[in-house]
């Protein structure tokens, strides 16, 4: 990897900085790896969480409210459900970002949709979590 512009020109600031400090924020987009990593991490986490959720619901002996409440109330299920919702909504938000950026071309509409989607998914996640906690602790 070539050294940065600053170093080649003998700039004092470049000379005193570590290579990583010079590399960080370089390039036209300045950032992006966090988004990439977040997508990968949430994807990996959602594989066991998604399988757990689908199988748990499928294995539920009946659809009675009492059975469902008991299932949600079990601390293991409460934890996994909260994680599934939180991680799932974060992953969904990242995915919707990409879809909106791809198909909405008017800059102002795109901005409104992207910001709106993040807020709505956050609202959705917190609402789901509130419902889960109410069932788990409310009795």
């Amino acid at each position, binding site marked *: 990897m070539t050294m940065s512009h600053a170093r080649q020109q003998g700039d004092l600031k470049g000379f005193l900085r570590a290579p990583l400090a010079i590399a960080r924020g370089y390039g036209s987009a300045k950032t992006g790896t966090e988004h990439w990593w977040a997508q990968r991490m949430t994807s990996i986490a959602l594989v066991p969480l998604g399988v757990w959720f689908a199988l748990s619901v499928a294995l539920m002996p009946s659809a009675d409210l009492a059975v469902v409440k008991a299932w949600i109330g079990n601390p293991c299920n409460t934890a996994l459900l909260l994680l599934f919702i939180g991680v799932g909504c974060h992953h969904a938000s990242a995915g919707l970002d990409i879809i909106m950026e791809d198909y909405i*071309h008017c800059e102002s509409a795109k901005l409104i949709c992207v910001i709106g989607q993040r807020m709505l998914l956050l609202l959705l996640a917190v609402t*789901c979590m509130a419902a889960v906690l109410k069932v788990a602790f409310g009795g």
Partner: protein
Amino acid sequence: MAQVGKRPLSPHLSVYRLYFTMVMSGLHRITGLGLVFGVLLLAWWLLAAAAGPDHFAVVQGLLGSWFGKLCLFGWTFSLFYHMSNGVRHMLWDMGVAMDIEGIKTGGVVMAAVAGTLTIATWAIVIAVG
């Protein structure tokens, strides 16, 4: 800024012949979108469970109808398809099977895995209750 939206765009769906890998990729996006609607449904179900028997009966009734079951089946398939294709994407991130043959074979295997998981889950649903 208003002019940006008026620029001509390259045609895509109107000119490209639909081929396998393209359909797989498109389905990944569509199932992703479908899963978001499923999360909305999940939110409604959880809120109804927290609210009480009356509200819960409404949601369960809708989910138990033929249309509701169809939606749930579609959601299950979306989940497993998007998951399997996601794993395929992550394998590509690691550089595995990135040649044309690998991508096509991977696509077939992935779709088969997704279908199998969907059918297995619904077999469990039918067997349990």
